[in-house]
């Protein structure tokens, strides 16, 4: 009697590739700054992973409500008001259903949005490598929702996970950055700790009233983009505008 048919073995192998054999927590430095903006969002972030779930958390102060900060744009000399939400940000991944939930924004409104983990079409560049935190890492390229990225992943940490939404490389993503000129966006690992204890990961979106799909969110974004941009066409020198996207470009020319 055969113990295991080749089909069952291959199926098991396929599904186990995405499951990390050990729990771990990785600390990253997250940086986002549009090149025409005097404001940078630069924070520490933590990726917690167990065999079923992962949570990428960008720590913030978690005050209730918004706060404002005034600064002078050094390029224009103009006063700028920065409207801060002060909320922590989470990307929650369910590795079994290959889905994630993230809070997407339209101006200041937030929408918990369900997305797939099967959206990354990586190109592996196995010949190029770098050493990060003592691990030998390999390079990969990605074209994802309107932007180009390069990433370094670690095959010695066989977990197809990474910071923010990024996922699907044959090893933990240690570093990723866009090569686009309009945006300085990178996430770099600072620390990696294997956890021998149980690592419980709770869904931060469990009490959300509504979870939108990515398509629903982008439909709303396009509608608001057209609506707000119409405010900018008058002669009253007021403009309210949505960008074509942030990390993910939603409005394609």
């Amino acid at each position, binding site marked *: 009697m055969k113990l295991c048919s080749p089909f069952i073995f291959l199926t098991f192998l396929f599904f186990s590739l995405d499951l990390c054999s050990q729990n771990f927590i990785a600390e990253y430095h997250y940086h*986002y*700054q*549009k090149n025409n*903006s*005097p*404001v*940078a*969002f630069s924070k520490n972030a933590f990726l917690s992973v167990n065999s079923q779930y992962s949570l990428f958390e960008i720590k913030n102060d978690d*005050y*209730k*409500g*918004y*706060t*404002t*900060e*005034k*600064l*002078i*744009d050094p390029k*224009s*000399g*103009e*006063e*700028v*008001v*920065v*409207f*801060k*939400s002060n909320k922590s940000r989470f990307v929650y991944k369910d590795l079994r259903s290959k889905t994630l939930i993230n809070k997407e*924004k339209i*101006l*200041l*409104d*937030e929408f918990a949005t369900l997305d797939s983990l099967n959206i990354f079409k990586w190109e592996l560049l196995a010949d190029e490598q770098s050493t990060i935190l003592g691990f030998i890492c390999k390079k990969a390229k990605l074209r994802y929702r309107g932007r180009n990225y390069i990433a370094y992943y670690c095959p010695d940490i066989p977990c197809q996970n990474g910071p923010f939404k990024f996922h699907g490389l044959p090893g933990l993503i240690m570093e990723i950055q866009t090569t686009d000129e309009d945006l300085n966006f990178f996430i770099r690992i600072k620390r990696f700790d294997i956890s021998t204890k149980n690592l419980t990961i709770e869904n931060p979106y469990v009490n959300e009233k509504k979870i939108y799909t990515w398509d629903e969110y982008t439909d709303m974004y396009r509608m608001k983009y057209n609506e707000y941009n119409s405010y900018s066409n008058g002669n009253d*020198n*007021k*403009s*309210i*505008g949505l*960008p074509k996207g*942030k990390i993910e470009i939603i409005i394609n020319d």
Partner: protein
Amino acid sequence: MKKLFLMFVMSLMTAGAFANEIIVSEPVLEADIASNCCRRTARDEDGDVLVSVTVCTEDNRLANCMKAEEELDRWLRLLAP
């Protein structure tokens, strides 16, 4: 000098109108009062522009800045969740 002080006080008052907590940076720079038009911009914490208002209707730059800040305040109240 009086003008600068007045603008600084007004920027404090305007900021106070829509903030739970306010961190006020440097007051208005000399370069900021070079022309009569006045632009005020609000960005989110990622740096993306939410609203931008430019006012040129008054001869006095200070009055234009007051109008621009009032208008910006109005927009932010509308947008705030």
